[in-house]
């Protein structure tokens, strides 16, 4: 109950802020951070819970963005339909990639996801309808409740973040979560304990990839502009991976912590020094945590708690 109260407070709080006079940069930063929460949480459902490392987050994120664009151009679909359509597409792609690679070793899944980045980007670049390499300009619809459309999107992102985290929390605390942990710990023993390992892995894959696509769907509308290079930006790949690992992969709060820290850090470093350095900082933090604190901040807190008893 406390969890749901907190979620309600966050959503209402963000809505209230959207009505207020706070300057727009706050919302820009907020959008980026909330999007990071969704990406990190989505990644962790497959990476942390099931043990499959998705290197191709830009592929699913971009596919979601371009699916939303397509639905907008072709059907003038409202945003909610765009998001659902994007999630459906990327969910199915995730399922297919899973079916292809999940019986093989984990690294092949990872390589296949990298493959998708290049294949999708190439498809988009060669598609005049979707804007090709130069991209497309879009007109934002009129804002309904808020001062401007972008503020409305930030509230939407807040809701999406709540949905994503709640989904991760449900999976983690249910027997699905325990089954996934069993698969990660010892797949053979899990099978022999009645766990349908293949089905669970595919479920985690589908849900994770669907969320990634949903996160990408609001992008075209938010920026009023879309082009492949920044949409399929490899930066999303390393961030979406670093955030859950640094935050802690075993618990749903880990990706949230990681996203808040890393996304904020990236913003600060990019603005004050350079965007290259922000990539370096994320990369170094990732390596340091993987080597020295593989259980992330959540793990460190747990250890500190048990040692101070």
């Amino acid at each position, binding site marked *: 109950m406390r969890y749901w109260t907190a979620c309600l407070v966050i959503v209402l709080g963000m809505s209230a802020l959207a009505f207020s006079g706070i300057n727009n940069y706050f919302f820009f930063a907020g959008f980026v951070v909330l999007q990071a929460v969704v990406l990190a949480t989505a990644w962790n459902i497959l990476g942390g819970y099931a043990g499959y490392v998705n290197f191709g987050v830009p592929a699913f994120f971009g596919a979601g963005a371009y699916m939303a664009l397509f639905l907008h151009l072709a059907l003038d679909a409202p945003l909610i339909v765009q998001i659902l359509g994007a999630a459906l597409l990327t969910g199915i792609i995730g399922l297919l990639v899973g079916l292809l690679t999940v019986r093989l070793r984990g690294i092949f899944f990872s390589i296949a996801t990298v493959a998708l980045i290049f294949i999708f980007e190439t498809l988009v670049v060669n598609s005049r309808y979707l804007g090709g390499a130069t991209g497309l300009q879009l007109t934002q619809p009129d804002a309904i409740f808020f001062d401007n459309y972008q503020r409305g999107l930030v509230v939407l992102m807040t809701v999406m973040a709540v949905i994503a985290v709640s989904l991760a929390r449900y999976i983690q605390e249910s*027997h699905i979560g325990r089954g996934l942990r069993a698969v990660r710990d010892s797949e053979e*023993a899990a*099978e022999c*304990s*009645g*766990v349908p390992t293949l089905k669970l892995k595919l479920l985690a894959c589908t849900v994770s990839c669907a969320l990634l696509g949903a996160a990408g769907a609001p992008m075209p509308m938010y920026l009023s502009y879309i082009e492949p290079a920044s949409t399929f930006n490899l930066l999303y790949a390393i961030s979406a991976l670093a955030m859950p690992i640094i935050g802690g992969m075993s618990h749903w709060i880990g990706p949230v912590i990681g996203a808040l820290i890393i996304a904020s850090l990236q913003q600060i470093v990019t603005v004050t020094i350079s965007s290259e350095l922000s990539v370096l900082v994320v990369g170094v933090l990732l390596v340091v945590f993987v080597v020295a604190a593989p259980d992330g901040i959540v793990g460190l807190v747990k250890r500190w708690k048990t040692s101070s008893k």
Partner: protein
Amino acid sequence: MEDVLQIKTVSKHFGGFTALSGVTLSVMRGERLGLIGPNGSGKTTLINCISGSLLNDEGDIHFKGEQISKLPAYQRTRRGISRSFQIPRPFRSMTVLENLLVPLSYVRGITGRQADEIAEDILKGMGLAYKMNAECSQLSQVELRKLELARAMAAKPELLISDEAMAGLAGAEIDEVLAILFSLNEQGITIIMIEHIMQAVMAFSQRVVCLDAGQIICEGTPKEVVANEYVQRAYLGD
């Protein structure tokens, strides 16, 4: 006495290497069967084919009258076949108790308070209840073996395969595990035991089967099999 497990001319190949060749074996309900053979004779491969960790290339496996050769392992477990692993494979991110909750929910559909109670009972029966909330890294060898068996038991199997549960254990520990297996059998569970420790096999088994190079070379009472010249040759070499 009906046969709970029927293995008919089962073969398994790995590339050019034949691990099992035309193995035919039946196990009666409630039986205590010992499976012996030198290293590399195919014992673990046979177990893997029965439990579903591997799929046999030729032949059929029937369990309780049903053809299971094509079923994935988790479905075989749900039908009543459980196994322990030669090198214990506990779920390391979980406590001892939580390890048992996995088969309880996935095989028997039991969760929550009820599952916790049943798991505790099983651990009590194994003498592991005092380590209920311990992490797996804190368990000794014999405790890990007991956990393997406890987890297999949590699935409420009708057939339990124990894969060298006593390997590397000292005398008193061997007796402990043996006693557990006997008591499980008394509850009506059919047990196939793979062991190298001959005294344990002799003491436990009603019938013994010996494998060598993927084939059954001898079958009979423990005394008969141990005295058999082919068996002796297989173990000691020509």
